[in-house]
């Protein structure tokens, strides 16, 4: 659990490296969309490389579905371009783009058998019957539905329908695969199973794919890179590890699972959290002494100790009292109330401008998790006083939300 000392020093968050080589298989440039006066999307740009899986992660209403529909050609952007394999397709109708869309409710043709559904793209392209048959057989094998070929969609389970939908789009070699919350309608067990299957399938077919989802676990598992969307703009775009370990904004930090946020002050090149001082290598162009910042750390980055001694690799930030303990399968989750530290308040901010007086500010509670062995080694109870340390954290400017 103890992470290397270096992780204490937060890396400055870099923008995702521009994909120069290999060239982007699919990209959108400066997309925006509005309905009437409401802005739905603002300046969305990203690239997807050949064979790469990009996940657009966001809450409902974040605009992720709209981006997908614009790429598919089902909706027109207000500004911006959609480029597939170097070709500007912004003005092309959906049918000329050669994209494959896997809809949330699968959208299989109810009056066609599995075979006919899969062969549809080739039939309307007037391919030879023999060619269609061979391709359909190949795809049925790929998605393991050979014995269901004569069935109608209504006779299949959700997961099977999903696989038919994927085979149907793969049949015509799409330029890009777009998945619109493909696991939304499935139960937890099936969705976990199916997303691993699809992940393996996508590796085989080497087509650039864009997934949209609101499920952070799904995003982290499926994506080569993840773009976190909030209210029509991209908050952060990076590898799952980057966005999980080094969230660029408070929104990203809290959207991707549990995150603890504490206020801190930049001091002597390090950070002052309450009465504790953390060494941190800060970007001095971004943070100066006296600045208010927020530190973000995950529950699993918290180390608890019943004595003043904290194991190496962890830095003390405060003491606190345990308020709640629960077991969540593989680990133990604790809620702690930290002792009141000094709140960060930039010197130039006069008291009367803050809405809350320091007295009314509640003490801060944080969440910590401990794996089972740790929990067994040091038994803790509600009401116990502990020393709280952290092994890794990220610094955010306090004003960013």
């Amino acid at each position, binding site marked *: 659990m103890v992470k290397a000392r270096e992780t204490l020093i937060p890396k400055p968050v870099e923008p995702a490296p521009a994909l120069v080589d290999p060239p982007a298989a699919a990209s959108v440039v400066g997309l925006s969309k509005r309905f009437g006066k409401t802005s739905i999307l603002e300046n969305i740009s990203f690239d997807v490389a050949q064979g790469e899986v990009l996940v657009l992660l966001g809450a409902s209403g974040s605009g992720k579905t709209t981006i997908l529909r614009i790429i598919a050609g*089902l909706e027109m952007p207000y500004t911006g371009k959609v480029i597939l394999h170097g070709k500007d397709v912004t003005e092309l109708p*959906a049918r000329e783009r050669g994209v494959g*869309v896997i809809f949330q409710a699968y*959208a299989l043709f109810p*009056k066609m058998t599995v075979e006919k559904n899969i062969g549809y793209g080739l039939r309307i392209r007037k391919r030879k019957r023999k060619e269609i048959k061979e391709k359909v057989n190949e795809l049925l094998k790929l998605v393991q539905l050979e014995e269901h070929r004569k069935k109608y969609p209504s006779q299949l389970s959700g997961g099977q329908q999903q696989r038919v939908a994927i085979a149907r789009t793969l049949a015509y070699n799409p330029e890009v695969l777009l998945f619109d919350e493909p696991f939304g309608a499935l139960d937890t067990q099936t969705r976990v199973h199916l997303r691993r299957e699809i992940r393996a399938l996508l590796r085989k077919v080497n087509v650039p794919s864009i997934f949209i989802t609101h499920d952070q676990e799904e995003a982290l598992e499926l994506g080569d890179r993840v773009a976190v969307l909030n209210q029509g703009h991209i908050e952060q775009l990076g590898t799952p590890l980057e966005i999980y370990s080094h969230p660029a904004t408070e929104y990203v930090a809290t959207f991707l699972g549990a995150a603890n946020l504490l206020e801190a002050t930049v001091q002597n090149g390090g950070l002052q959290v309450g009465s504790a001082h953390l060494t941190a290598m800060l970007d001095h162009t971004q943070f100066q002494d006296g600045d208010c910042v927020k530190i973000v750390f995950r529950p699993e980055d918290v180390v608890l100790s019943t004595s003043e001694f904290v194991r190496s690799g962890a830095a003390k930030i405060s003491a606190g009292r345990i308020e709640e303990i629960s077991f969540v399968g593989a680990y133990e989750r604790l809620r702690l109330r930290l002792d009141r530290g000094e709140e960060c308040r930039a010197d130039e901010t006069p008291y009367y401008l803050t809405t809350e007086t320091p007295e009314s500010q509640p003490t801060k509670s944080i969440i910590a998790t401990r794996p089972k062995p740790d929990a067994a080694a040091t038994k803790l109870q509600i009401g116990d006083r502990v020393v709280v340390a952290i092994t890794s954290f990220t610094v955010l400017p306090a004003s960013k939300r």
Partner: protein
Amino acid sequence: MSTAVSAMRHVRGFDVVRPLSIGMLVFMMLPLVFLPLASIFIFGTSNGLDKFWAALMAPEAIFALKLSMATSFWATVFNVIFGLFAAYVLSRYNFWGRNALIVTISLPTAIPTAVAGFALLLLWGPYGTLGRFLTPNFEIMFTAFAIILANIFVTFPLAFGVIKPVFDTMSRSLEEASATIGATRWQTFWHVTLPSLRGAIVSGALLTFARAVGEFGSTILVSGNLAGRTQTAPLYIFAKFNEGQIEAANAIAIVLALFSFLIFSVLFFARDWLDVD
């Protein structure tokens, strides 16, 4: 009293209300529906089947039946195609005046058929608004064409009414999926939309046809009721009855009654087939 009634309801687990209410229902329908229908068959065949057959085979009778079938057929073809088109436009596009159009299409249901026939006369008749320009060279009223027009008018909303709800509930994502796969609008309509409408189209067509075959009120005004030329089956029944030839009227009545039995049996018993998903 109330204890007596409630005691009557169940006699040792036997629900008395059940046979009573079923019997009541049949009894009420007897004079209203069953007996009138039965009397057509009883009377029509009372003089022997050969009399019935002879009455049916009278040239004017055959002609009337054929004319009814032909005019109803063309009215059905038109109304199904139109209903499909109207349902497509009115469920896919939202525009100013959309509801007004829906109400107008559905209006002929509520208009008395005699009024419909009269309206057509006023428009296409020899002195009508448009008819007067055609009259010297071309006659619409008092021809088979007029009967088709009248049939179209009175059965106008039927196919539309059956097809539109299916369109409304049809998921747009099917058509979107088809488009992203690469289909043109026409291919999408032909391969995806139309198959889902099969049941609605068949039942809409049967309803329209059944209704058109029986049309009387508007037909008698616009056709001129000329035996052997513009006399449909219902008009034939009316004409023969007026002439006192009850057997002749009755023979055609039997055919029309059987015909509607047939159509509604198909609609009722083939529901599963018509509605398959």
